[in-house]
């Protein structure tokens, strides 16, 4: 790193060096056995330079090649147009405090293999016909360092263990499957064989329902998936500035039902996306985004924080081979008031898993999604698993139409973040079946 800094200093330009060293050990499951074990490391370097507000960027995985990388960044800066809104690179003032936990550091390929087999054995002890069809466990470590010409030099290390398994069950030529993912920066919860068995068995035998309007009960995982699309898009200060967001000019105005409050949390240690500083070296924080349905803040990086004159909220995210862009940290919803939402249901579709969430229109909020794992609920009772049901609606509309939320929040790992979200019941959704 010293050589790289020294070489950049000679070029008399403003610079930012972003380096990531990562190390991973993982396995894969295929048909109830550990079919593959891998380990390795990767190093990558991203260099941004600024010449009279003209930005250049290049990256490499070959550290010996850093001079060519710097030359490429300088070349792109010289050929770029000035960015009048460029806020400069990060300045000193942050210090990395996070380290991988002892639990994660102590994990090796043998532990991963042993734990995977325990999960398989536990699941099959619940129902011997269940097959652990795919998935595996991975341990990942990463060390990030940011150095800028403005005096920032911050380094932090992270460790994470993730288990993601697919389970299937065949009965009378009908196959059902479910997937379960758990992630932690400390201790991994591996006791999900019971959940897999119960969810699989509840899916026999699916039935069609009449098309029409139903209440919609979303499991926290499905609510998190919807939030990660339209909510994350709409609160992004760049999308607001670019006139792409439904939340343009909506600051301090109601955007969701008054019972909904959401914060963006980059600091709470036990959550997945918590960091001391974001990818531009800005100290992370807790940002109140939605308060009683009122939009209170967008999330931003240095550039859009400067444009809005409100400063960065510590939401810059990147890899070494990409420029920083705005993304959510951990998404925390305020709990609701109900112990049990099922008893609140008259005639409802309970969506445990949805098909095609990534296809929804994140800007307009329009969606048309298959109910992959869901049940019909009548008067608080589960009637049957659903077959061939599609729900259509608009994200912003249903978020203004919520009737109840659970007291309990679930910690859902999604896109590298933790979503702490409740079960949520919505007044009406259109279902097509047939």
């Amino acid at each position: 790193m010293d050589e790289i800094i020294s070489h950049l200093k000679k070029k008399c330009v403003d610079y930012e060096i972003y380096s990531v060293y990562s190390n991973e050990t993982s396995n894969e499951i295929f048909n109830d056995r550990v079919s593959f074990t891998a380990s390795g490391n990767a190093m990558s370097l991203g260099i941004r330079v600024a010449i009279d507000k003209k930005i250049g960027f290049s990256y490499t995985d070959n550290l010996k090649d850093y001079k060519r990388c710097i030359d490429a960044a300088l070349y792109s800066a010289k050929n770029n147009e000035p960015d009048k809104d460029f806020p400069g690179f990060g300045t000193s003032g942050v210090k990395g405090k996070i380290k991988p936990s002892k639990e994660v550091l102590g994990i090796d390929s043998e532990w991963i293999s042993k734990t995977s087999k325990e999960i398989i054995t536990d699941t099959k002890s619940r129902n011997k016909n269940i097959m652990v069809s795919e998935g595996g466990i991975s341990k990942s470590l990463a060390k990030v360092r940011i150095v800028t010409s403005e005096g920032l030099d911050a380094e932090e290390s992270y460790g994470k263990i993730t288990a993601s398994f697919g389970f299937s069950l065949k009965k009378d030529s009908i196959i059902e499957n479910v997937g379960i993912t758990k992630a932690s920066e400390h201790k991994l919860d591996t006791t999900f064989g019971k959940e897999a068995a119960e969810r699989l068995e509840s899916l026999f035998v699916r039935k069609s329902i009449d098309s029409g309007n139903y209440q919609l009960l979303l499991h926290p995982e499905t609510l998190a998936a919807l939030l990660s699309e339209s909510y994350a898009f709409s609160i992004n200060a760049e999308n607001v500035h670019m006139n792409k967001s439904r939340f343009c000019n909506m600051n301090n105005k109601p955007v969701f039902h008054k019972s909904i409050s959401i914060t963006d949390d980059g600091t709470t240690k036990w959550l997945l996306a918590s960091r001391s500083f974001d990818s531009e070296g800005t100290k992370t924080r807790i940002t109140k985004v939605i308060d009683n349905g009122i939009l209170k803040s967008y999330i931003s990086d240095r550039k859009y924080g400067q444009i809005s004159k409100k400063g960065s909220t510590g939401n810059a995210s990147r890899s070494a081979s990409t420029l920083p862009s705005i993304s959510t940290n951990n998404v925390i919803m305020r709990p609701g008031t109900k112990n049990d939402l099922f008893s609140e249901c008259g005639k409802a579709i309970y969506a445990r898993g949805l098909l095609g969430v990534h296809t929804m229109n994140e800007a307009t909020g329009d969606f048309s999604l298959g109910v992959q794992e869901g049940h019909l609920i009548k008067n608080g009772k589960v009637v049957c698993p659903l077959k061939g049901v599609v729900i259509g609606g608009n994200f912003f509309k249903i978020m203004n139409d919520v009737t109840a939320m659970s007291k309990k929040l679930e910690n859902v790992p999604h896109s590298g973040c933790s979503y702490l979200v409740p079960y949520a019941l919505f007044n009406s959704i259109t279902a097509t079946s047939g």
Partner: protein
Amino acid sequence: MEEAISLALKKGAEFAEITSVKSSRNFIETTDQKIKELSSGSKELNSIRVLHNGRWGLAYSFEKDLKRLAFEALENAKSSDFSVKLNLQKPVKRKFTTAYKKNPEDYSLEEKKSNILKLCKKPDNISNLKVIYSDSVIKTNYINSEGSDLSYEDVTSGVLCWSFAKKGDKIENFFEIERIKGGYEILERAENCISTAIKKSIMMLNAITPKGCVTNTVTDQKLGGVLAHEAIGHACEADLVLSNASLLHGKLGKTIGNKLVNITDNGSLPKAWGYVPFDSEGIPGSRTALVENGVLKRYLHNRETASLTNSKPTGNGRAMNPAAKAIVRMTNTYFENGDSTFDEILNETKNGYYLKGSAGGQVDPASGEFLFNATEGYEINNGEIGRMLKGASLTGNIMQTLHNIKLIANDMSLGTGFCGKGGQYVPVGDGAPHILIEKARVGGV
């Protein structure tokens, strides 16, 4: 490289392979006729995979210390369970290069930037216009203990345009992508890509949302391609079949659709986006007929599933990068041409929907339920194309849908995309002619 292979064999491995990938990329992103990003970069990764006592182990690094990686891979294999006794294949020695008209490396980033900016003219009624240009060169070297020695220099380029139109409080958007196996000749397609995205985003402001219903539906080449890929291709992947995760398990030789239906996976088409001259396990890409005249004929295999089922590998073992496991993946998957024309299909439809383009899709290969979102749609009234639709999805069950195909046109074309499975993304092609599906479930708002 050969030394590390020899070392692995000396330590008892029955099979070993080394993959080395170096890539470079140029990238230009503009927003509202201004440069947002102008960059270039390179990546490099090396790996060795071994099969030792029937157990797979892999090690990778950005450094090329292959002997150390061989020891690490052998150690990792001990943590795996017995997997397979591999059927060995004949060695192949060949070099492949993508054919291109204009080498992207012959044009400076400055010239590319200038040409792209000239095309990014934003009309007044467009609130935001994003245009991305990229080109990349990926050099893959592969050797294995069978004696195969392969290399592939793959040149690709693409243009993406995402246009947002605004009228009062209403925002609509449309994106258009052009990708090719080729070089800077992509610029010839950029203008049309950008103007299409702009025009369609404005049209979307007046589009109506369809009511969910079951009706006659015509799919275009792109959406039909997604049907071939998502609904049939995934269910034909032998790893899913073997692990009880595909409803096509045990259906080889059985009728699964209308006799008009012929579906193929073909990794041997050099100009197609999913071309694999050799897969990530050194097996040449090939043409595999999955469905012929409505009858399921074959599954797709990597080395492991082929050995487990005493089949031939089909060149479908693909890994996203050298660090990942080569799992069974599609290449270019498509419905073969039928003998109808598009006009005949519209006339036969009478009333229904015409769904075009793909905004993504997902399938549950076990139950056969699928959902694909169209980027645009149109009413069909008395055989004529009517009002524009937005937010329409095609959903259904694989088996029912294949039986409900009534007509297939003779205008097949292949599109480009990326497929995700097990956290890995690989380039794939998919395509179809226009298809008429009776009693299709169309989801709306």
